């Protein structure tokens, strides 16, 4: 049924080139990491605790959200629910990579998913839409993003925020602009555009009327349903 013929070979040289490809955006990730580190020590986490969290969790939005719940104690179930809800987009990202990932042996398949995050996934997804198979960016790009998140957190916990007003410089919009550029860089067939309209509408409805942090999954699944019923006239080969 699955992985009968593992045939995707991760190329070390390509992993290195994808590491460098994401180096520029990683510099911005350092700034966000510093903001997290500063916020964490202000909430009472020890520097090493905040750093450990960044190293093993590596999911910025959910780490910030956890700080909002911080006190003398942290309620267990709400903590798990918030972390799961915010990070549930990873479920969809991992699923979307499955047609490529199934060609890796399980150890490598799940190994590279450890560093799956928005930016490296967006590039892999865009490359796939354009007919290029690029799992190396998940590993190489993920490693540079992870390293930047670690370095940023360390700077934040020991030296405070790097910039006084990152917002006034527009730096809070780096990831949003990056993801938008990736979305618009893919193929734009009528089918894709209808899926986007449905996805955006469903996401807004969920954002307004459903529990917090559900809008990404709701919107993405709604867009996926369009693709389920409206098939491409000609199958898109690899």
């Amino acid at each position, binding site marked *: 049924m699955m*992985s009968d013929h593992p045939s995707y070979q991760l190329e070390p040289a390509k992993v290195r080139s994808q590491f460098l490809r994401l180096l520029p955006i990683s510099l911005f990730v350092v700034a966000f990491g510093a903001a997290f580190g500063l916020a964490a020590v202000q909430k009472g*986490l*020890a520097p090493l605790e905040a750093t450990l969290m960044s190293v*093993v*969790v590596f*999911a910025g939005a*959910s780490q910030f959200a*956890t700080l909002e719940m911080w006190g*003398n*104690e*942290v*309620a267990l179930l709400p*903590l798990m629910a918030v*972390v799961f809800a915010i990070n549930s*987009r*990873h*479920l*969809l*990202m*991992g*699923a979307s990579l*499955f*047609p490529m990932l*199934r060609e890796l042996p399980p150890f490598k398949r*799940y190994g590279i*998913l*450890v560093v*799956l995050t928005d930016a490296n996934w967006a590039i892999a997804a865009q490359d796939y839409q354009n007919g290029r198979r690029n799992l190396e960016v998940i590993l190489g790009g993920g490693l540079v993003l992870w390293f930047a998140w670690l370095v940023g957190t360390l700077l934040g916990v020991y030296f405070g925020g790097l910039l006084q007003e990152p*917002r*006034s410089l*527009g*730096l*809070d*919009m780096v990831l*949003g*602009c990056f*993801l*938008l*550029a*990736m*979305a*618009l860089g893919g193929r734009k067939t009528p089918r894709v555009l209808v*899926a986007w309209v449905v*996805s*955006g509408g469903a*996401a*807004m409805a969920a*954002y307004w009327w459903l529990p917090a942090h559900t*809008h*990404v999954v*709701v*919107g993405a*699944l*709604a*867009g*996926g349903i369009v*693709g*389920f*019923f409206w*098939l491409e006239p000609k199958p898109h080969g690899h």
Partner: protein
Amino acid sequence: MAIETTTTGILLIIAIMALVTLATRFGGTFLMSFVTISPRVEGFINAMASSVLIAILTPMAFDGDIGARAALGTTALVMLATRKPLPAIAAGILAAALSRYLF
């Protein structure tokens, strides 16, 4: 149930966060390994992939301040005109900074 934020408690909290997050990173791929990839499933996956991005971005644009809207609008225009991500992202950030400075 609640966990006290002592050193041990914080380590436990971090471990729980890490495990939940790892489950989201592995879960989608794991579940897909039980699904037969028919053309319809492939259609679902492909449409869902770019829809993830749209679902992240739409509330950002709707609910964002003028800087967020200027950034996303400018990035979209430059990206559609040039098809080059880096100038599009740079223009978007510049638009956010400028609009926040001016308004």
